[in-house]
C-alpha cells in the first residue's frame, strides 16, 4: 500500500524542514503544496526530498489540500494523509491514523483532539469555540454530533474516498466540508485521538478565533 502525506504550506520555510523530517519515516511519499509562498518554502521542501507542487498564487489551505490530494492520486497513492506544515501535528501518530485503513476497517480516519490525548496548551478560548463549532456543525451542517473534533486538519483516506469526496472550499471551511461530505456518504469513517502542539508561533500564524465567523460565512454562501 502506497501511503502519501499531503502537506499544504504557505510561507513555512522555517518549519517545513522539521515537519518533513518527522513525517517521512511513516509514509512512502510526501507531497508539499507550496501555496504561492514568497519565502523559501519550496526550496527547503525540495531539499528534504518531497514532491513539490506549486500554486502560482495563494489560494488557501483547502485549495492546496485538494491540489495535493489530486497529485497523490496521480502518483498512484492508495492512502492519503493530510498533515499541517507548521509542526502542530505529531507525526508519530501517523501510523495510528492509517492503521484502521490498512486493516480494511474503514475508509476515512479523522484525527480528533478531544479523544483522550490531552491537547498540550490548548487555550481555553479555543476550547469554547470548538465546542460552539461542534454545535453549529450538527445543527446547521448536518454533521453527526458523534464527531468530536469539528476542525481537525489531520486525517487519512483511501484512494476511493479521495476520489469520491469532492471538497471545494478553498480556505478554512474545508474541515467542516470534508466532515459533511464523508459523514453523509456511504463511506465508513472513524476518529482516532491525536495530540496537537500549540506554540506561540503556531497560534500567531494559525487561525484566529475571529476566523470562526469567516468559516461560517464561507460554509453558508459557498454552495456547490
Amino acid at each position, binding site marked *: 500500500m502506497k501511503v502519501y502525506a499531503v502537506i499544504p504550506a504557505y510561507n513555512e520555510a522555517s518549519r517545513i524542514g522539521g515537519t518533513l523530517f518527522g513525517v517521512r519515516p511513516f509514509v512512502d511519499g510526501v507531497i508539499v503544496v507550496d501555496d504561492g509562498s514568497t519565502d523559501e518554502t519550496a526550496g527547503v521542501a525540495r531539499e528534504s526530498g518531497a514532491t513539490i507542487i506549486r500554486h502560482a498564487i495563494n489560494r488557501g489551505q483547502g*485549495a492546496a489540500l485538494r491540489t495535493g490530494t489530486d497529485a497523490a492520486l496521480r502518483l498512484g497513492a492508495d492512502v492519503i494523509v493530510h498533515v499541517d506544515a507548521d509542526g502542530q501535528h505529531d507525526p508519530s501518530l501517523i501510523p495510528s491514523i492509517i492503521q484502521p485503513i490498512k486493516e480494511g476497517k474503514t475508509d476515512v480516519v479523522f484525527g480528533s483532539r478531544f479523544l483522550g490525548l490531552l491537547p498540550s496548551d490548548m487555550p481555553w478560548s479555543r476550547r469554547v469555540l470548538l465546542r460552539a463549532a461542534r454545535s453549529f456543525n450538527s445543527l446547521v451542517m448536518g454533521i453527526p454530533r458523534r464527531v468530536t473534533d469539528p476542525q481537525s486538519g489531520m486525517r487519512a483516506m483511501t484512494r476511493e474516498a479521495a476520489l469520491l469526496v469532492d471538497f471545494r472550499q478553498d480556505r478554512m471551511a474545508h474541515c467542516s466540508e470534508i466532515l459533511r461530505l464523508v459523514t453523509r456518504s456511504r463511506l465508513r469513517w472513524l476518529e482516532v485521538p491525536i495530540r496537537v502542539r500549540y506554540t506561540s508561533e503556531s497560534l500567531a500564524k494559525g487561525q484566529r478565533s475571529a476566523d470562526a465567523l469567516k468559516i461560517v460565512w464561507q460554509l453558508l454562501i459557498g454552495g456547490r
Partner: protein
Amino acid sequence: MLIQIVLISSLVLALYVTWRRATQGVISWREALGWSVLWVIAGVIILLPQTTTTVANFFGVGRGVDFVLYASVVTLFFLVFKIFLTLDRVERRLTDVVRKDALKELPEQKHE
C-alpha cells in the same frame, strides 16, 4: 429644485451610457432595457415624488420617501449578496486554473 436637476441630469447620463454600451455590445439589449426601466422609474420618483406615496400606502407604509428607502435597502442587500455569490464563483474558477497549472507537469502514474 436644484436636487431634482442634479438627479435628473445624472439619470439622463446613465440612460445615455447604458444605450451606448448596448450598441457597443458590452451589455445585452435585455440588460440595457432592464437598466433603462430602473432609470425611468427613478426619474418618475424624482419628478413626481407623490406617486411613491400611493405605492407606499398600498404596501401599508405611510410616507412615499420611507417606502423608497426601505425598498432600496432591500434591493442593495440583494445586489450585495449576488455580488458575493459571483465573487465566490470567480474565486473557485481561479483556483481551478491555478490547480490545473500546478499539476500540469506531474506525470500520471498507472494505479494497479
